[in-house]
């Protein structure tokens, strides 16, 4: 009985739930992760991640500690993989040549606080290799683009979170990179600013840039793209179009441990539900295998109230699927 409950073997677990659908004559990937693993001492930050990004917007979602920032830093060339390879337009992401192809907007909120926003961007433009004249022109263009041209002369120390986010975004765009890595770019920005930023991201994608946007908020990401990569415990749990992921998740039976009293009442009702694929008993608990998890949990909640069941524990047994579910059940269309 326990065999049926084992989540998946190691090989299966390292495979994402949904792979990108094969396209005919695709352009070469801008960003390519090939079986990348990264350890922090004994802790595994990323585990055998394979990912291809082409022009357009891809959302990167996952809980804290799922590996989002590690993935972004590997792509930005601030970390090196312990196993596997990360390439940007065919160049090793760690090299300085690759940094010409990537703009990184980190979650980190540290600046040269004594500089003004304009001076900060000018310094970074000059450090990128622009001449003084070109740097000035480029910075003014970028300040207009991110809506900061009229307030860029104040010292960065006095900026609000939203203003700092805009300056961070501007610095990532200085050298007009093919790939933009944006770590929580909308956090701290007011609703009006968010709309402006979303419009800007869409425009950049329309221009053929590749954007990888990390966010906790699937709702926000859904306004930008339906292409997401869901990270769970250092693995890509799902990657592809959101509707497709949801559809497959609905068809995919989930193993759920339910511990309640009286369990025979619960079993009797569960057998009548069309979502249920199988029920097994493991000591005092029930292991329920169900399709369409959202509907299952809704019905289960009602049943618990109606039958006054005493629930001790409800637990999703497939870790990766659980994380995907947490995101998708919180989404607007689930």
């Amino acid at each position, binding site marked *: 009985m326990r065999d049926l409950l084992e989540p998946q073997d190691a090989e299966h677990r390292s495979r994402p739930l949904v792979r990108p659908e094969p396209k005919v004559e695709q352009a070469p990937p801008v960003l390519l992760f090939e079986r990348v693993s990264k350890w922090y001492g004994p802790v595994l930050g990323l585990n055998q991640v394979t990912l291809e990004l082409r022009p357009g917007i891809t959302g990167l979602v996952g809980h804290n500690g799922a590996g989002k920032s590690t993935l972004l830093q590997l792509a930005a060339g601030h*970390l090196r993989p312990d196993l596997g390879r990360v390439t940007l337009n065919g160049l090793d992401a760690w090299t300085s040549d690759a*940094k010409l192809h990537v703009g990184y907007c980190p979650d980190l909120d540290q600046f040269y606080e004594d500089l003004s926003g304009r001076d900060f961007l000018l310094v970074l433009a000059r*450090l990128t*290799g*622009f001449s003084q004249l*070109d740097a000035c022109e480029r910075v003014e263009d970028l300040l207009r683009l991110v809506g900061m041209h009229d307030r860029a002369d104040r010292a960065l120390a006095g900026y609000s979170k939203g203003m700092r986010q805009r300056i961070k975004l501007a610095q990532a765009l200085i050298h007009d990179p093919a790939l933009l890595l944006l770590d929580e770019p909308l956090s701290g920005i007011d609703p009006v600013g968010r709309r402006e930023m979303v419009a800007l991201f869409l425009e950049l994608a329309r221009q053929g840039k590749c954007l990888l946007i990390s966010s906790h908020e699937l709702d926000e990401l859904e306004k930008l793209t339906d292409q997401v990569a869901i990270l769970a415990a250092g693995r890509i749990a799902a990657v592809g179009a959101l509707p497709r992921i949801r559809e497959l998740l609905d068809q995919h039976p989930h193993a759920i441990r339910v511990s309640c009293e009286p369990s025979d009442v619960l079993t009797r009702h569960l057998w009548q539900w069309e979502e249920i694929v199988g029920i097994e008993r493991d000591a005092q608990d029930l292991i329920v295998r169900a399709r369409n998890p959202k509907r299952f949990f809704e019905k289960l909640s009602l049943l618990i109230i109606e039958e006054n069941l005493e629930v001790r524990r409800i637990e999703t047994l497939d870790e990766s699927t659980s994380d995907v579910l947490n995101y998708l059940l919180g989404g607007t269309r689930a």
Partner: protein
Amino acid sequence: MTAPLSPCRAWCFLVGWSFRRQARGHLLVWVALGLLGLSALLVALSTRFERWNLGFLRDGRGRPTYEEQLQMFELASSAPMPHAGLQALAGAVRAQMMEASGLWTFSNWAVLGMFCSFLLPLWTLTFATDALARERENRTLLWLLARPLPRPALYLGIFLATLPWCLLLNVGGYTVLCMMGGKPGWQALSLYLPSVFMGTLAFSALFFLLATAFRRPSILALTYAFFLETVAGNLPGYFKRLSLSFYTRCAMYDAARDYGINPPRPGMFVAVSGPVAWGVLLGAFVILLALGCWVFSRKEFAEVQ
């Protein structure tokens, strides 16, 4: 029309910009300037009270100073009956002791003792550790690492921008001390300046490497400066050969060889020759700089994560 991006232009800008950033005063610089003021005051007081001679030294614990011994000799030579030969001898000894020993005393006390063993490493670490440490502690290193500049070029650029400040503090500080030292100070200034310059280069490369490899480089560098350079560097035997100040002092002794300036206890000091000292300092500079480049180019800095 936009000119193509130039890594060379970016690097030159990095050097100039980092140099200007170092001009901002920080705690260690104020400590260094305070020490400079204190040591300059000590030297000035010694000059004012004419202490740059052997007269105040003793040839053993509990024994009278050389000045007291000479006074006793002069008294003996003039009483009960003046003796012209002995008086001439006393006059000659006084001339040697009071005048010709000025450079020897100043060199051993102010230059080799205070400056070389203590102030030189301390003043160098003021700028050499802080340049990178500040970028790391403020977590602004990220902005530099994200630029399309090779990491060794970044390292060398920041080092090159920091070096003039290290030289300014050491050579400038040394010049101030020498100016306060009167005539022997002026003599010592040109005599030891090349060694001060070379010592500064070697120490700068060392402290810059520490700032790259470790998270709290100032504490580590201070510990190193106090224990390995100041304490262990003055111990008898061969252990002191691990310290850079030992080779700086050897280079200084070699420069002052013609003036009869040698280590007070040659058997304990076990000096190396001038060319060896210069070779070690130059080698240390090159190797430590190359090692720093290598560490910096491979390191994943936790501060940017």
